[in-house]
């Protein structure tokens, strides 16, 4: 039967491969080489992924898309996060992408959605961007809120913040006392052009005003 003979052929091939591997690993040196090779390949993959994470976090990468360079980047340039007394200037991803490796990989995978959006609309028209600003701002705010604003706190240490104005001193003292230190709940109109409070975000930050 042809099927029988084809089956037999497969079994014979597998056996030959097994025998070859068996022969190869008879020598301990070969085993060490194989292990080393695996580590090197995995290591290089991690380095490459981390490099992609870093590149993907960079402002230069983000603004290679028109929707980013024409609007949010221009707004960023007007902000204190771009120019300030200390000269500290974060890259886009330092605020918008998780710090740790796997969460960063996840954020970048999810970020490919932005790529689809980039080619889905005519971003040369500001009205197209403005029409989506509120929804986009809500998404960015909720992401930060749900992550407890950890990207903010990579640089800003709550106990080290010394607000210049009385309102800031009072608000921070109160926030520390009540343990409500999710930065974005108050600083939701900080870097980019003002966007209105949406119902969903307002609900999320309920309790931060009292």
């Amino acid at each position, binding site marked *: 039967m042809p099927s029988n003979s084809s089956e037999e052929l497969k079994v014979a091939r597998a056996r030959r491969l097994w025998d070859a591997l068996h022969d190869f690993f008879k020598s301990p040196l070969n085993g060490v080489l194989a292990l080393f090779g695996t580590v090197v390949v995995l290591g290089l993959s991690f380095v490459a992924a981390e490099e992609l994470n870093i590149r993907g976090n960079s402002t230069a990468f983000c603004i290679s898309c028109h929707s980013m360079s024409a609007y949010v980047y221009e707004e960023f340039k007007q902000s204190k996060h771009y120019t300030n007394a200390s000269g500290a200037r974060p890259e886009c991803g330092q605020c918008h992408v998780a710090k740790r490796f796997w969460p960063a990989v996840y954020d970048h995978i999810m970020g490919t959605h932005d790529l689809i959006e980039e080619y889905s609309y005519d971003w040369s028209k500001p009205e197209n961007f403005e029409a989506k600003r509120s929804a986009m701002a809500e998404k960015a705010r909720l992401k930060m809120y749900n992550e407890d604003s950890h990207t903010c706190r990579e640089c800003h240490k709550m106990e080290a913040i010394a607000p210049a104005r*009385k309102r800031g001193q009072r608000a921070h003292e109160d926030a520390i006392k009540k343990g409500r230190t999710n930065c974005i709940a108050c*600083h*939701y*109109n900080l870097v980019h052009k003002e966007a209105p*409070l949406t119902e969903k975000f*307002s609900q999320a930050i*309920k309790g931060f005003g009292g």
Partner: protein
Amino acid sequence: MQKKIIAASLAVAIAGPALAADPATLKWVSVPRTQITLFYPGQSTQEWMTSAAHRAGATGVNEGKNCQECHADEEADIGKTIVSGEKLEPTPIPGKPGSIKVTVQAAYDEEYFYLRASWPTNLKEAGVFHDYKGLKDGKWTTYGSNRTNKDVKSGAAKVSYEDRFNFMLGDNKGSVANFANQGCWVTCHNSMRDTPNEPTKDQVQAHPVLGKDGMKKSDIRKYLAETRTETNDVGGWDKLKDKSALDDLMAKGTFLDLWQARAYRSLPVGKADDSYVFQYRNFDSGKKPFDSNWDGEKKQPKFMFDPAKNKGAVALTQAQFRDPMAPKLDNTNSVPFDPAKVKDGDILPGFILNTKTDGSADDLNASGTWANGVWTMTFWRKLNTGQKDDVALAVGQAYPIGLAVHDDNVTTRFHYVSLPLKLSLGTKEGHINAVELK
């Protein structure tokens, strides 16, 4: 009884001619003084205050925080920022300071409540002038008006407007829910005069209730959000509740009493402009201290001076403009306007004073003196006037209030305002604590 006599004699003494020395001086020596910083608010309307533009403040306001909780002692800084035009002020007035300090005293006796305020003015004379119309090339045009008037800005008219001390009072039951926490901002909305999205005269006149078929308004002034079915970023000026809903609200006391001591239009007749904020900034019922002297249809004044009582002249001369000794047009020295009797260059006041006020508009007395660069203005009124458009006061109680000053020829929102304040009578729980006069 003796206190009543004192109060009555005081009222009689002060209700005399304009800018008489304040006979209440002796009484005030024993009354504690509170200094309050008033600041320039620009276009910080209630809608702004609850919007994302107010940042974290919006969340606080929406969750019932009092402005004072964040902004106490920041008044001067806020005023400086806004008056400069950096934010919330699209039309800054060059050189205007951002804040002023007002010294306030409050007292009461068995029958009356007294409130006195004094502040150093930026104008180096008493701001006792107002709108004037002038006859130029056979046409009556604006001769003098406030700093933000379009003719003044263009240079076609001169600067001239009255100084004012204003007091807003809510009841002690929280009938205007947010007044205690949000202060006068509850009356200040987008779509009002000089605020974002201000409706046109035609739009207001076309409104079935506010317009020419109803209240005959041509602009939008203070109102409470409670009187609208909806308020939003645009403001909601036109979304009035129906009459029965408004009547119910008014009957429940959902309004704010507003007292305005006006240096031209009320102090000369011994009164303050007694108003209340509800669906509009309404005048109290009765004959008020002043009326417009402008006939909009004929585009000419309604009244002129009686020559028999004004040294033969029917109008003021240009030399009398901003002369504190120049007569003021009132019901005792005027006759109906006669175009045949005026000549080019004549000036007539834009408002006519009433020496005979009556009704609820008559129950708020006021006096004022300006000396050495300082205004001192005093209100006094029965604790309970018994009028439906006044907020009654009672000893032992505390009331939410707001203060404002119009200084140096400005009107509408170009004033200085206080954060929400509390007034107590006979207790110590307020920012201003009225004491009993003994």
